[in-house]
């Protein structure tokens, strides 16, 4: 790890998942976050409060609903990759497709 100025990255992304940052999406998000070394945080507003994006308990506690904007920021040598990967996951609707009730039948 470099001891120079740490890499910083930030983004804002809209949640399209039909119930928001729900159990399954939260599992996927925190699992992905944990694959990066950077410290990654998530918030519902730019002013915070920012929570650890690697903690499912804290991510779920934001109770981000459908249509909410989520702010992501990361700090560390792979910060830019981390933010890009998490943003892509949310934009892909957590790989859940668009049929929320497919599992219910």
């Amino acid at each position, binding site marked *: 790890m470099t001891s120079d100025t740490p890499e910083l990255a930030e983004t804002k992304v809209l949640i399209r998942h039909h119930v*928001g940052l729900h*159990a399954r999406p939260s599992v996927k998000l925190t699992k992905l976050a944990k694959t990066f070394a950077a410290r990654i945080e998530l918030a519902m507003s730019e002013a915070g409060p920012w929570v650890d994006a690697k903690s*499912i*308990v804290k991510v779920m506690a934001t109770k981000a609903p459908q*249509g909410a904007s989520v702010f992501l920021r990361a700090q560390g040598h792979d910060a830019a990759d981390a933010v890009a990967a998490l943003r892509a996951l949310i934009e892909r609707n957590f790989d859940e497709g668009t049929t*929320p*009730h497919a*599992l*219910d*039948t």
Partner: protein
Amino acid sequence: MLSTLRLTGTVASRGFAEGPLVPLTVVRTRSREAGDAHTELGTLRAAIERAVAEIDTIAGSAGDEAAAMLEFQRAMLEDDSLIEPALAAIAGGQTAETAWSTALDAQIAEYASAEDEYFRARSADFRDVRDRVLRALAGEADAAPPPGAILSGDDITPSQFLATDWSQGGAIVLRSGSATSHVAMLARAKGVPMLVGVSGLPHTNASNALVDGDDGAVVVAPDTSTVIRFRSRRAAGALQRKHAEGLATQPCVTADGTPISIYINVARPDELAVIDARTCDGVGLMRTEFLYDKGLPDEETQLLSYRQVVAWAQGRPVVIRTVDAGGDKPVPGFTHQETNPFLGVRGIRLALASPEVFRVQIRALLRVAAEGNVSVMLPMVTLAAELDAATQLFNQEARDLEARGIRHAMPKLGIMVEVPAVALMPELLADAHFFSIGSNDLMQYLMAASRDNGALQSLHDVKHPAFLNLLENVVRVGTEKGIPVSLCGDAGSDPQAIQPLLAAGLRSLSVAPAQLPLVKLAAAQVRL
């Protein structure tokens, strides 16, 4: 011995069951002196590890839905944020059991009070995680209920569901619970009937109980004739379902090829959890009275509920009816006390009499209209002036939202046709974007027969020529003026009534969700 007890609740999973009623067991924690913090910490860590191992064992044999739920619980148990408050409590001298319970109870309470139904339902997952670790601390394994039983309790954890042998039938009836919980999804996937929100359930065992997960009814200690009726209903239901299932996701067409649109009536958004949106053309009537059960709802609360239905519909039309309250169902700060509420200040009359209350709903409706295919229906409209006044309020609120930069759209505004004066001369309300015939109220006002008086049942006859004449009149005027006409109400949900309704010219019906397959089946047999 219990006397026969009939209760009703919300259907979370359909189907029929007959079996002994068995209360769900609750985990008990023993009280003991706390050891030193180091020992207590080790005890808690070991119990959590054991709980994680148990989850891995069950997950191996679980279906996709269950595996996803278990993965979520496992992720929770492996997150130090969940355990931190317990660690602090142990450092403060508490036992592992007390520290863990207190920490998890705080999370459970937090989720139980969430505004959003989906997040509220997660409190059951936290309860499950809490109890699994408490059982590990007590050295107990999962306690399995007897097979074929109807399990009753306040709520059931996903683990209790997974530990139960459902191969010999059985069902779940809960005093609270939620149709959007993980357990409800598991129950639907496995075909286990489940009812939630059943108040008055006994806390004791009963040797026999019946669950009708089509009607949302449970009968504890039924008499012989009730059992016989239930069994024949179950058999008939299974047979009809088999016929109707083939039609479920097919568009509805009569025997001679006329397409019919079939929508569903929704009283509460959580009812939709058991319905596949592909089996209907949309929501023809979303009632909003439930929002006023506990007083006047704020704009955000309303918006969340509307949004849930619109999201479920996936672009299909959703018709939301503005609140249809009256003196028969009092809402403090809103309804008027009256001696004859069905002929009183109700529906649009009440809304216009309390514009400050109505405006809150209008704003929520304007906002959700920007998110889907939303129309708004006004109940009990009698005069064109009422529609004009409501339209003005919608326009005013839209301007206000615009000024504040809040996303919104103007929905189509239609009316319920349920007052005979309107059904006789619908042309006087030609500014409405659509007519939806409210068969229950139109019938009771037409026949001067209260709909909740069982002694007057024979007067509520959909085939009465006067009623059919009115329907034909509304359809005729609608066609002339280019105003779409549909019918929502019990008449549309009665398979026997489908033939006369279609013969009167209706091509669009909104029905009770449980009747959806049977209505499609009945329509498919009609020749026009």
